[in-house]
Each structure stands twice: as C-alpha cells, then as structure tokens.
C-alpha cells in the first residue's frame, strides 16, 4: 500500500519536473516569439540525475523500510527537483554544483536505508555535537567564503566547501533529543536537567553570533526553545525565550550595525531602495511580476534579484510560477510538517519522538524564516530554504534529517510511547501552519493587491527588458512621416531617432537615463498599455509576461516647417513655437542647441552637465524676461496707458502667463503673482498669447499629440488637455493685431529685447491678421542673444512659409 502510494506520487513528481524542464528548453523560443533560437537543454542533465537517484532511493526505502511514511520522500523529492531546475535555469555552473550535492545527498540517503537502527545517534550524542562544534570553531580560524567576500562561514578544500553550521543544526536537535530522553524520566528538577543544555546551546549560539551568522543563530535559539518546550511542556520556557529574544533583538538593534540595518530595511524599505533595501525590494518586484499565474519557468527575470540562487530562491520561484506555484510549494512544505509531527506522535520512544518533532521544527522554522524574509513578513536572514535553495551543506543536512524522519516513521507498527501532554506538539503544528499560512497571505498581498504599484516602480528593471522585446509605438508627424521608430528585432529593439533636432521636444527613452519629453508623457500609448483592448493586454501578459505592441502616435508637428526652423537655428541658443492660432495645434516647436539621442550611451553624462543645457526643451521649460515684447498685449488691454507694475501684472494675468499651459509635455511651473522680480514667460506661453491676437482674443488650448492608432477603432484623436480661454474682447485683440500689421504683408509682427544681468534676449512675435481667410497662425521666436535681425528673419520667413504651403 505504502509502496504504491509513494510510487504514484513520484510518478506525478517526475511528470511535473519533466514539464518544467521542457518549458525551460522552449523558453528562449517563447521569449523571442520564433522557433529560430538556441534551445536550452543542459538542465535535462539535472533531471536525469534526479530521476535515476530518486528511483533508486524509492526502491531502497520501500524495500528496507516498508512501513515508512509514503509522503515524506516524494514531497522532498519534488521540491528538491524544483530547486535543482530553478538553480540550473538561473546559472548553469551553480546548477552543476547543486546536482553534485544532490548526488551526494541521495547516496547518503540510499546508504542510510541499510541502517537497522538510528540508536547510535543517541549513544554518541556528545561526540557528534562536539564534532559539529569543532568544525564551526575551525571556521573562526580557517573560514573562507566561496564567493570571495562576506562572512567566512565555510571550510574549503579546493573546490569543495562545507558550511559546518548546517549539519550542526541537525546535530543539536539530535543531542537535545537524546539528552532529554535520557534525563527527563529521572524525575530530577527540570532546571537541573536543563543546565547542561543551556550551556552547550549557549556556546553554539555564541559561536554563530561571533561569526555574524545571525540567521542561523536565531534558528538555533528557536529550535532550542521549541525542543525544550516539547519535552517539558512548560509554557514558561516559551515566555522566557520570547523575552530573551526581544531583549537581544533590541540590544542588537542599538549596538550591532548589521541588525540595525536589517531591521531598518525591513520596517522602512522604501526609504533606501537602491541601498540597504535593494534586495528586499527587488525580491518584492519579482514576486509582483509573477502575479497569479507566473511568467513560466525560464520566462521571468529573477536574475535581477541579488543571490536569487540561495536566499531569494522563493522570490525566483514566485516570479516564474506565480501564486499557483508558491501556494503549491508552501502546501508541500506544510505536508512535510504535518507528516513529520504525525511521525513524532506515533514514535516508539521518547528519543525518537523529540527527534522527529525537532527535525520537523527545523524544516518549518527555517522555511518560515526565509520565505517570510523574502516577503518582508520578517526581517531578512540569510538562511536557506530547505531542499530548494542552492547550497550543498544545506541540501545534505536536509536529506539526512529527512532520512531520520523516514526511518523513525518505519516503526509505526510498534505501539506509540505514552504521551503525557499532547498540547506542545499540537501547538507546534498550529504555530508552523499559521506561519506558512501567513506567508501565503503575504505572498498574495504583494502579487495581487500591491502588484501593479511595484511593477511601475522605476527600479523595476524588467521594464528595460520589455523595451527590447516589444516594439515601441512610432511617433509620426502630421503627415505620418516617421519621427521616431525602432531598430533591431525582438530581443534587441532599441529606439531610433530619425529626426534628431526634435530631441529636446520629443525626448528619449533610454535604459540608463530613463525617459523625457513626449516619449515619457505618451509612454502608456507607446508601450501599448493604453489604447489596447483589455483582453489584448491580458492575453499578451499571460503569454509573454509583457504588454502588447506599442501604438503609433501622430503629432501636430509639420516636419517640413520644423526642418526649415532647425536649419535657421543651427548654432544658436533659442526656441521657436509656431502654432495654429485657432486650434492650438503646434506645427513647429524647436529648442536649440539640440542633441543626438541615438548616441546617448556615449554622450549621456556629458549632455547632463553641458552648460548649454541641450536636454532642456527651451520652448516649454525655458522662462525668459519679457522686456519690450509686451507692448502689443498692453495695447490690447489698455490702449495707450503708461506702463507700471500693476498694468504689467494685469497683462500677465489676462494672457495666462501666470498659468502653466496644459499639454503633453513637461512645462515650467506657474510663476507666483506676488513676485514682481521674476516676471518671466516661456516661449510656449508667449505663442499662446500671440495666438489670442490672431484669434479674436481667444487663447487656444495647445495641442501636440493629436491621435493614436488603436487596433480596434483606428486613429482616435487625443483630447486637448486644456480649454480655450477668452482673454480679451475680440475687438481689442483685432485692433492690437491690426496696429502691428506689416505693410504689404499679410501678417503682424513685433520684436523686442530684454536684458537681465549680463544676458540679453531677443523676442519676436507675429501672426496672421484678424480677418485672415486661411488657417490662422501665430509664431514666437526667442534667441538667447541680442540679435533682432535674425529673430525677425526666422519669424517672418516661417510665417510666410506656413501661410503658403
């Protein structure tokens, strides 16, 4: 019966791991969306080794230990195989090493099935514990770290490393079980029995604290407390341990730097996302990226989490298999715990009972500690997830402990030893189950409730990966000529800026320097998040873990006029805005000097520090003193009154200079009305005010992004963000414009200069006359120099060009 159960479960496990390995093989194709890729085959080696050894171990267990629990071995085999494939998928070299460790572990387990009894553990308890402690002590002198830096917790010989604190966990459990089983029936006072254990465990814990292996030290403390509580049934022990831990924790917080750092980054991770909280935040982002269904093995990017192989393997699994996977994983660990406690309750003597319960507690506590750490349920401690994490010492110890549990379970036909107090065992079961349940709930919180928030964080590096795999929407001018498109193919997409001089306006999207301009403000459309039907988004996210292809956006920019403008501005510092005075559509927006975003990689840092500020869009972000350019507006509002501060403030108010224009571009913040010394205007604001003179006193709402090409409805126009404002009486506007009309020409114009300290500025404004029969236009030219003639030439030529297309 047991044999059939165990073999069925192992068959299902084999199918599970086979599918996982197959998905990893196909994952490059699913990512690249083509069959023409290099498939990943190497992880099949791990599966082959796993299959052979597990089959052999199954055969030996069912033959030599026929009455053993049939669930423990398949459960451990499943999660260790899962871990093996995950490690292999993350890093082939570490995968090979872990496969080696798995090989050794299973050989030890298979050899163990030949043991008739485990009583030698009881007899040699002192020797075993002393050996374990000796090895840990050796690390104080000869300790190394396989990665070259960090705490030196390992003993190394050539390429082999042993972390003695791992087997020591198991040896401590063995020692406590054996010692307590020997002494408890002697009816001495409990405290007398406990003295030696307190001293020995204290030494062990002290050793670990000296080594800064605080995670392991806390596991030891928890295990010691639990075992003593199980054996004696005294609740006071729990209380005492709780207060001691709290005291040590608080003391550690104030006196030990690493404790303080860990606790701080646990309580307030968002304060320092790139420093001490980097790991935990990357872990949470990975878990959020997994969501409910996960990205699929091989299809996530858990490589972004530091130490994803060992400490954060739970986050890696969560990203690739989602809540479905982690709930299954936690359920399997829960199964090991319940079966382990059952073995303990049915054990034939006190030694085996305490030993089985202690091993169960070891699995449970360590799982909760690291999974809780990954989920920010508990402060982070660098311990391993039993059976799953990378680490040979941990895997071997886990399997030895599992073997002992299986061996104890084989004596279920003998009557269980009497149990005076069952409560401690039930309490342990309830405590561990609650811990796993809390982990599952927290996992759901990060994956579902907080998932979207986490994924839009700027330190989510998966967005950068997505840019390479999903083509970004094109940016087109008003005649559908391409301004920005993409280079490369799936997996290597990068942005291609065809019309370079528009860079300060259109902006850029760059993995290192982020996004700016329209590339930033229209990001949701260009990425395909907005404008696609929900079903498309959902399906694309399910299949690829990415958003669908981006949508093309059409601007109001006229590339012909833009090009004319940029030619005239070469080598200057300044800005030009030409717009449709009625609809507010911006036909030209130029800001010079410009830069070439195609070469951002090489020139990015230099551009940021360039004193000419080429990255700034002067047309919307530049704010300039006005000087004599204000005259037409004063005329429109007051006629021939003499200018004073109040008049100027009123003009500013009326023509919207105290308001930031609403447009899909970053604009300079609105200036305060109270401060007379900073009366400045951006070229865009000036252009909108000029438009009012050509548009019967109405300031149009500016527009630059006109329409988006959606898959369902075709081109859909993007609404204007602001509203047209009736600034002045239509007649007043018309009169003002008429008084600045140029003889023999169909436009009005005015130019002026402003001075501020050493710098001088030249303004030119102009527009079509009030009764103009075609498209009404308005223009602003600003030069950061004293050059009236150039400003006039640019403005007039552009106006004429725009009026006669």
């Amino acid at each position, binding site marked *: 019966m047991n044999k059939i159960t165990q073999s069925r*479960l192992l068959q299902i496990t084999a199918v*599970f791991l086979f599918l996982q390995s197959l998905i990893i093989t196909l994952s490059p194709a699913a990512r690249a*969306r*083509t069959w023409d890729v290099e498939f990943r085959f190497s992880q099949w080696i791990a599966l082959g080794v796993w299959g052979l050894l597990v089959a052999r171990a199954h055969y030996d267990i069912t033959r030599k230990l026929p009455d053993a629990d049939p669930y423990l071995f398949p459960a451990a085999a499943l999660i260790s195989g899962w871990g093996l494939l995950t490690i292999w998928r993350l890093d082939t070299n570490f995968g090979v090493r872990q496969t080696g460790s798995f090989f050794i572990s299973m050989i030890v387990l298979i050899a163990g099935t030949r043991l008739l009894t485990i009583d030698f553990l009881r007899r040699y308890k002192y020797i075993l514990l002393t050996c374990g402690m000796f090895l840990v002590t050796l690390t104080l002198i000869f300790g190394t770290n396989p990665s070259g830096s960090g705490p030196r917790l390992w003993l190394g010989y050539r390429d082999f490393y042993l972390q003695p604190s791992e087997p020591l966990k198991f040896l401590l459990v063995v020692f406590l079980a054996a010692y307590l089983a020997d002494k408890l029936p002697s009816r001495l006072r409990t405290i007398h029995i406990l003295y030696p254990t307190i001293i020995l465990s204290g030494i062990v814990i002290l050793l670990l604290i000296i080594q800064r292996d605080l995670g392991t030290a806390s596991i030891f403390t928890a295990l010691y407390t639990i075992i003593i509580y199980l054996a004696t049934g005294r609740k006071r022990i729990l209380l005492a341990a709780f207060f001691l831990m709290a005291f040590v924790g608080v003391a550690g917080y104030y006196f030990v730097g690493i404790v303080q750092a860990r606790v701080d980054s646990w309580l307030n991770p968002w304060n320092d996302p790139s420093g001490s909280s980097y790991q935990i935040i990357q872990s949470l982002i990975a878990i959020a990226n997994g969501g409910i269904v996960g990205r699929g093995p091989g299809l996530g990017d858990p490589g972004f989490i530091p130490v994803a192989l060992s400490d954060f393997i739970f986050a890696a699994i969560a990203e690739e298999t989602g809540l479905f996977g982690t709930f*299954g994983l936690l359920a399997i660990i829960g199964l090991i715990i319940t079966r382990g406690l059952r073995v303990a309750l049915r054990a034939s003597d006190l030694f085996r009972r305490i030993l089985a319960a202690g091993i169960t507690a070891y699995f449970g506590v360590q799982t909760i500690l690291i999974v809780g750490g990954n989920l920010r349920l508990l402060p982070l401690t660098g311990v391993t997830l039993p059976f799953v994490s990378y680490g040979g010492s941990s895997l071997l110890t886990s399997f030895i402990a599992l073997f002992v549990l299986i061996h104890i379970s084989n004596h279920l036909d003998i009557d269980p030893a009497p149990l005076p107090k069952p409560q401690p065992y039930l309490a342990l079961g309830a405590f561990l189950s609650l811990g796993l349940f809390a982990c599952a709930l927290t996992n759901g919180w990060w994956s579902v409730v907080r998932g979207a928030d986490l994924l839009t964080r700027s330190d989510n590096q998966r967005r950068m990966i997505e840019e390479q795999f999903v083509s970004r929407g094109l940016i087109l001018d008003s005649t559908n000529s391409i301004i920005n498109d993409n280079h490369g193919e799936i997996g290597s997409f990068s942005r291609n800026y065809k019309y370079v001089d528009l860079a300060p306006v259109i902006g850029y999207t760059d993995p290192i320097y982020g996004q700016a301009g329209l590339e930033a403000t229209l990001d949701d459309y260009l990425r395909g998040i907005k404008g696609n039907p929900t079903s498309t988004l959902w399906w694309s996210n399910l299949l690829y873990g990415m958003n669908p292809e981006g949508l093309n956006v059409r601007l109001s920019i006229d590339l012909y006029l833009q090009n004319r403008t940029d030619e005239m501005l070469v080598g200057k510092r300044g800005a030009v805005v030409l717009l449709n005075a009625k609809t507010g559509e911006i036909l030209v927006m130029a800001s010079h000097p410009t830069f070439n975003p195609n070469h951002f990689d090489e020139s990015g840092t230099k551009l940021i520090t360039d004193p000419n500020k080429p990255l700034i869009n002067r047309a919307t972000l530049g704010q300039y003193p006005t000087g004599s350019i204000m005259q037409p507006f004063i005329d429109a509002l007051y006629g021939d009154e003499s200018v004073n501060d109040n008049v100027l403030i009123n003009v500013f108010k009326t023509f919207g200079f105290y308001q930031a224009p609403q447009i899909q571009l970053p604009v300079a913040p609105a200036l305060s009305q109270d401060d007379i010394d900073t009366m400045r205007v951006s070229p865009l604001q000036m252009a909108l005010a000029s438009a009012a003179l050509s548009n019967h006193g109405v300031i149009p709402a500016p527009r630059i992004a006109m329409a988006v090409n959606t898959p369902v409805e075709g081109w859909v126009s993007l609404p204007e963000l602001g509203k047209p404002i009736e600034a002045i009486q239509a007649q007043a506007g018309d009169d003002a414009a008429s008084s600045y009309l140029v003889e023999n020409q169909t436009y009005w114009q005015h130019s002026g200069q402003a001075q501020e300290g050493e710098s001088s500025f030249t303004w030119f404004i102009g527009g079509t006359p009030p009764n103009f029969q075609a498209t009404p236009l308005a223009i602003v030219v600003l030069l950061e120099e004293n050059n009236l003639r150039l400003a006039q030439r640019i403005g007039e030529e552009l106006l004429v060009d725009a009026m006669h297309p």
Partner: protein
Amino acid sequence: MTALLVLILRVALAIALYAFLGRILFTLWQDLKQQGEFLSSQKKPGIHIHAVLENGKDIQQRFVQSEVTIGRDPNCDFPVIDEAVSAHHVRISYHHSQWWLEDLNSTNGTFMGKIQVIVPTVLITSDQFKCGGTTFTILVDMVDEKLLQ
C-alpha cells in the same frame, strides 16, 4: 505560436503540481474511509449478563452494544434493585478486542473474588464479579476469530 505552446505546457505544469497534492488528499481520504469501514465491519461479540441478587432473585439479559452500565439508576442499561449498589456502579465496555470491566467510583466497590477492581479489567466467559450484594456472571458470545482480525 511558441508562447502559446509554452502556455499550454505551463497549464499542464500547474495541473501536475496540484495533481501531486490532490493525489495525497485522495490517498489520505481513502485511508480514512478504509479505517472507517474496517471499524464498522468489526464484529464484536455480544455479552450475556446474569445477576443474582441477595434475596436469590436472578435477572439475565444479553447485550449487543459496545457499552453497558450497571447501577441502581433505572436509566442504566442493566438496572438492579440493591441498596448496596451505587446509582452508576460499573461499566462493561468492548474495546481492544476485549470486554472490560471498569468501576465507576462506586461507594462499596466492585470485587472479583476477593480482589477489588480498581483499574479496568478484562472479562472472559464465566468470570464473576460482585457489586454490593449482587453477584454477576458473564458469558461472552463465541465469535469467528477471522472476523475479529
């Protein structure tokens, strides 16, 4: 195409994982069911109780349930009218494949021969015990040994 195939495999993967857990629940439930059926199919032998009161009057009755209480209280399964018998004097119950005699903290005690019954004691056919002035004789039905296994 590729991603669709992988999606199908991912669904199969999730099914395999939960098939593992489902299989465990299934076997655990089967165990439970089997145990229930085993317990309910267990045949217990009936018990025949023969009581002789102090005044020589005798009562006898056969029981098939697994628990019989004897006492002065008329609600007992086997009520006896004897001043020296407590209201709930003893319990005879079947478990661990045996009939057991258990004193329910009676005032005058229960005796088998001259030995007082303090801990539950196994009863076999023709065993006699005494509560107050009444003497009880037990006859256990013969049951096919195979059924007991």
